[in-house]
């Protein structure tokens, strides 16, 4: 393993020369590329043991089984990746990518606008392509991420970003594809000094806050039907929810809040609904299945919420929910730096019951569906974006996740970032690396 990693790194450094900032964004795909011989995990549950995966002008052109198909690859630059594994790029939903750098430094946080009802606030605008996180994400296979504002009852509009680009327009994959709503909690948590523990008590403002949301949504619907009107930026931003262009991301946690919030959105005729952070979803799995509501779960690598919970509940929650017929994807709810472990969050779900290819879906195709971008990404299928990577081994396991190539819309992107540069610098200082 040591040799593989070192050799790889050196090879990668050669590719990228020296840099002081984040790696230079790659140029658009200039010639067709074919990856041959790898085990291809398509992200839709299928696996091709000996595959040909080819792409041109940023789109997948061939996804084949080499043992059964004969194709002419002469127009492609063929890269032999036999024995390695190819995956669709992992997709990170519900993150503050590009909006946050060093979380404890106020000047470096750009994701919570003041106010309660902010659908017009757009994450895209703050998105910093020079963030150091993107390189660290790519290094482990996370190639797409949703940049999401937080706070208030309606936080704002999110966009899906590619982990590469000169500026936010360049990096944007799907602009303003969703609006995030924080359903008011029915219970509030308080710290109690007498017992040194947290206690929960009823949120007295619950009805009032729900009322505020209801009025806002109802008026936004009515606004859409007006022939002539004075422009209202907030209501304008809301319109995509009622014609299915945008997804409403509902952040709700406990079972009653989940049912109440989904019913609310349905009543107001929101077309696409995704539930986020739904730790309590297990109790209402039947409801979510019947209403076809996808769920974006917090990271599996979490502590159980209650002392009484099974110690492995967060680990097995994706499995339990998918067994119950709910479409699940996995996010990173902790500090942003942890999001590079997205693949291992899915790996953890495998350790606790989930089939490997099903687990892969929770960070690829299921996520794409939950975000409403599955027409372009999430699986390795002809016509979709060539956003994929090659790993030495099983990318869901620490023991296999070592990337050799990554492509975003066909662009071969640099894998090493500043962290690898520092590794090289100091390894050389101590004579550990030549």
């Amino acid at each position, binding site marked *: 393993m040591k040799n593989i990693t070192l050799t790889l790194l050196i090879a990668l450094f050669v590719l990228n020369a020296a840099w002081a900032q984040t790696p230079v964004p790659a140029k658009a795909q200039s010639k067709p590329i074919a990856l041959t011989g790898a085990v291809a995990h398509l992200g839709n549950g299928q696996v091709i043991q000996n595959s040909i995966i080819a792409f041109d002008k940023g789109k997948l052109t061939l996804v084949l089984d080499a043992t059964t198909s004969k194709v002419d690859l002469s127009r492609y630059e063929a890269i032999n990746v036999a024995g390695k594994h190819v995956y669709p790029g992992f997709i990170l939903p519900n993150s503050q990518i590009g909006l946050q750098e060093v979380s404890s430094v106020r000047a470096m946080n750009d994701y919570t606008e003041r106010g309660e009802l902010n659908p017009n606030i757009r994450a895209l605008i703050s998105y910093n392509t020079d963030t150091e996180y993107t390189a660290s994400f790519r290094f482990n296979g996370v190639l797409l991420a949703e940049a999401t504002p937080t706070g208030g009852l309606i936080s704002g509009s999110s966009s899906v970003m590619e982990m590469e680009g000169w500026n936010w327009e360049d990096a944007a994959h799907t602009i303003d594809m969703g609006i995030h709503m924080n359903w008011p909690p029915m219970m509030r948590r308080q*710290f109690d000094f007498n017992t040194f523990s*947290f206690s929960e008590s009823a949120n007295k403002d619950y009805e009032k806050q729900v009322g505020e949301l209801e009025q806002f949504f109802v008026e936004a619907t009515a606004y859409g039907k007006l022939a002539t009107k004075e422009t209202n930026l907030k209501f304008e931003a809301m319109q995509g929810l009622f014609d299915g262009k945008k997804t409403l991301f509902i952040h709700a946690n406990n079972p009653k809040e989940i049912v109440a919030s989904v019913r609310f959105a349905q009543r107001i005729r929101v077309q696409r609904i995704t539930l986020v952070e739904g730790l309590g979803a297990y109790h209402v799995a039947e409801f979510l299945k019947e209403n076809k509501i996808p769920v974006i779960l917090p990271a599996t690598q979490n502590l159980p919420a209650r002392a009484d919970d099974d*110690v492995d509940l967060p680990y097995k929650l994706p499995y339990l929910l998918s067994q119950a017929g709910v479409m699940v994807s996995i996010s990173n709810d902790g500090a942003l730096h942890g999001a590079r472990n997205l693949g291992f969050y899915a790996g953890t779900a495998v350790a606790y019951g989930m089939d490997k290819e099903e687990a892969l879906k929770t960070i690829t195709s299921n996520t794409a569906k939950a975000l409403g971008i599955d027409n372009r990404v999430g699986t390795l299928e002809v016509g979709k974006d060539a956003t994929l990577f090659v790993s030495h081994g099983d990318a869901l396991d620490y023991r296999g996740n070592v990337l050799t190539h990554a492509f975003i819309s066909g662009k071969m992107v640099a894998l090493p970032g500043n962290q690898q540069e520092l590794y090289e610098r100091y390894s050389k200082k101590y004579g*550990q690396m030549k």
Partner: protein
Amino acid sequence: MTITNYMKMKKSKVVMILALLFCGWTARAQETFPRNDVKDARAGLYAFTNATIVVDYQTSIQNATLLVKNGKVEQVGTNITVPKGYTSVDLKGKYIYPSLVDIYTNYGLSEVERVRGGGFGGVEQIESKTKGAYNANQAIRSHYNAADEFTMNSKVADEMRKLGFGAVMTVKQDGLARGTSSFVTLAERSDNNAMLKQKAAANYSLTKGSSTQNYPSSMMGYIAVLRQTYLDAEWFAGQNPRPFADQSLEAWIQSQKLPQIFDASTWMNILRADKIGDEFGVQYVIKGGGDEYKRINEIKATNANLIIPVNYPEAYDVEDPFDAERVSLAEMKHWELAPTNLAALEKAGINFSITTNGLKKLSDFIPNVRKAIENGLSETTALKALTSTPAQLLKVDDQVGSLKKGMLANFIVTSGKIFDEKTTFFQNWVQGQPFELKSMDTRDFSGNYNLTINGKSYNLEVSGEAGSHKSKIKVNDTTSIDVTGIFSNDLITLSFKPEKKNPESIRLSGWSDANGWKGKGQLGDGTWITWNSSRTADLAAKSPAKQNGGDKKEEVGKVIYPFVAHGTPSLPVAETMLIKNATVWTNEADGILPNTDILIKDGKILKIGKDLADPAAKVIDGTGKHLTAGIIDEHSHVGAASINDVASNSGMVRIGDNIDAEAINVYRALAGGVVAVQVLHGSANPIGGQSALIKLRWGESPENYKIQGADGFIKFALGENVKRTGNPASIRFPQTRMGVEQVFVDAFTNAREYEKKWSAYNSLPAKEKALALKPRRDLVDETMLEILNKKRFISCHSYVQSEINMLMKVAERFNFRINTFTHILEGYKVADKMAQHGVAASTFSDWWNYKWEVRYAIPYNAAIMHRAGVLTAINSDDAEMGRRLNQEAAKSVKYAGISEEDALKMVTLNPAKMLHLDNQMGSVKAGKSADVVLWTDHPLSVYAKAEKTIIDGKVYFDIEKDKQNNKDIEVDRARIIQKLKNAKKSGVPTQRGESRSQLDFHCDDVLGFEKTED
């Protein structure tokens, strides 16, 4: 006596006189007080005859007489002739008990100001705000005397007397040292007369009360302040003249001869308090929290006399299954078992007294004691705990607690045995002053009557208890008319509507005569009429004991260890185990051995090899599995009740003083293969507290968690946290890395001076020493000196290279070495210097960028340091990451390609070496402690699960047992939920999902505030 007889009984003259006394009593002032009337001297002579007198909790005399004179018991017994001039009260059929005694109240004292927050935001308050020459710490209030403040409070006294109390101890429940409490009666003459003992006890606690000073702000700090104050007081007492004035220390010194009472409030705090007492030769009387049953053996071992509340939790509202999820099993079980607490104490032979302290409603007191009796507490012990024990604990048993000649006339008159549900408390006499609780002569009118109104007859039924009668007119067997009635001994009012459809009612008023009532009234049309009624028969007997719902006693659940979900009724025992055919990661020269057996016996690894056999051994198939040394976390905060205090140098506080044996994260860590951790102090200060090295012995007592004989460690910290970056208003020194260095230099310089002072004193010849002033013992200096003398070792929270370099230089200047840099995210930049210094490194695998000083943290850090020759470990500082440290170790393989064997050592052998435990753990080697993990898969794989986590040869986590355990939790919850539902149905008050959850500590947490990652 039948009801009829009773009704016919002539009202005694005595009762009438008494009734007058109750309302006519005026406070008679003592001699020295000015008078505003003529002198009104009374001898207070009473004789109570024909009573059952309970003279003490184990002796009662039938048909006895009690003579009272001047507020004291003059005589008690049989064959006593009532002297002339005594007011005689015939108590035939009634009982006299000594009044109850409560020795933990705040009767007659002002409320304690509650300080909000208590965290560490805003401008810090470094010094005490107490005005005057008092202690340096605001929470030391030993100078307070309840006698200075005590003022009778009729309202509270009345409530307490209704419960049968006659005298109480009153204590201001404020501060770590709470000063002296007074023992007072509930009489209502004057404050001076009520006060029996001005200084009844000296009081202590583990809460800082109204103190606004920042230090101490943790359980560890509370204990440290009390320990330092004991040392200061001893030193101060030996200084003549005193070096400075400190009225708190003076009072502390004076009050040591009093009974010493410690308010501990939970079973864990009882053990903590007792340990402080043991150190300073004090046996406290300890006030508990009513949860002693959770650890009865450890409580018994303290030998402390206890004061126990009966404040059982209210039932939880569990109607909605989703809402019920908020209530934890521990809360439900405590609701169920709290009423068994006193019985458990009695059974264990622990001496205790019962207090009303902590009750939301005082009126719950007697019913709650009764509940304890229903749950197995003997009535004798209950009475003892409310009379003689509290009196003895305060050394006032010559005045209260029993009825003997010369003692206070503090007694209650009851209708029957004191704890019987049907018993009525009639009177409570305090210091010879009578208080009527319920009239003894309320007539019972229940029965059937023939009511004649204007010549028409009705069948009237009067039911219910005397004083609260109900009445109706029976038309036939199934139909009746409600009658509104007011029944007093002499007068009666009745009204009813004779016909349903007619809204007009008949209204009657009258007076009682020998066999009923007669009087006048008005019909619906206004016509005045006369009426009478005569008694015809007793009420038909009710079917007895229907409301008790049968005699079948409800079963209660078992106590589990620890008392939280995933605890079990019994603890694991050391087994002889033979694990066959596993892949064994030895961490020794043998490397990784495939298809190998290991034999565990008596808590140790006995043999490693092929084809091992032991007929006594339980054989475990390890085929396809991996066995490794148990994971050791160099940096953890699991299993501590608090982790951060706030003094810049907090070297006096000790994590070991506040091990939390009920922390759920301990079990979760076990499930991740962790066997031992260093529980470190947080990073709020350059010099933090002393660590505890523990094994995760889930279910054991706090002391048993600790690794016996382990070296002492201490937390140091550098950078943003210690300079209070998170608090822009902070004024605490230091505010820069420059100041941080000076804190260390200052601490070690002072320690050297301290050492000199003591060695000079200790080397004096005996005669001179006796005359010389003894230096003051200082817990901070002593800790610093331990470091200089290589008896205590530093684990230093650190990030950037400049500060890492600095601390090594400081240590070298004082001629010692830093043991470990923990976190050390820029260690890779100075790895060569670290190797030269000889310091170990314990780091995160891949955390970065959550604050400025970790901007340049890289996931190659561990590998670079390791390759530079630094002993390197991967740690967690986080209960989540702490339960999958094997995976964190795997990341150094993924990123930097170190060998898998070296990676695993980073979470096993290397931390063992850092903690100086590698002679007993950290590798799989014959003779070492059997602290091992059997994994389902390759231990560095995301797919590996700990199947068995073994500590000292005991299986503390078993993946199969855990599944059963999950089911047991559901079953136990379901059982109690049914009980809770029944309780709600029966009408008891319930609380809605007020769920409590434990804190998951990180370095930065000061009382749960400023919660960011490390």
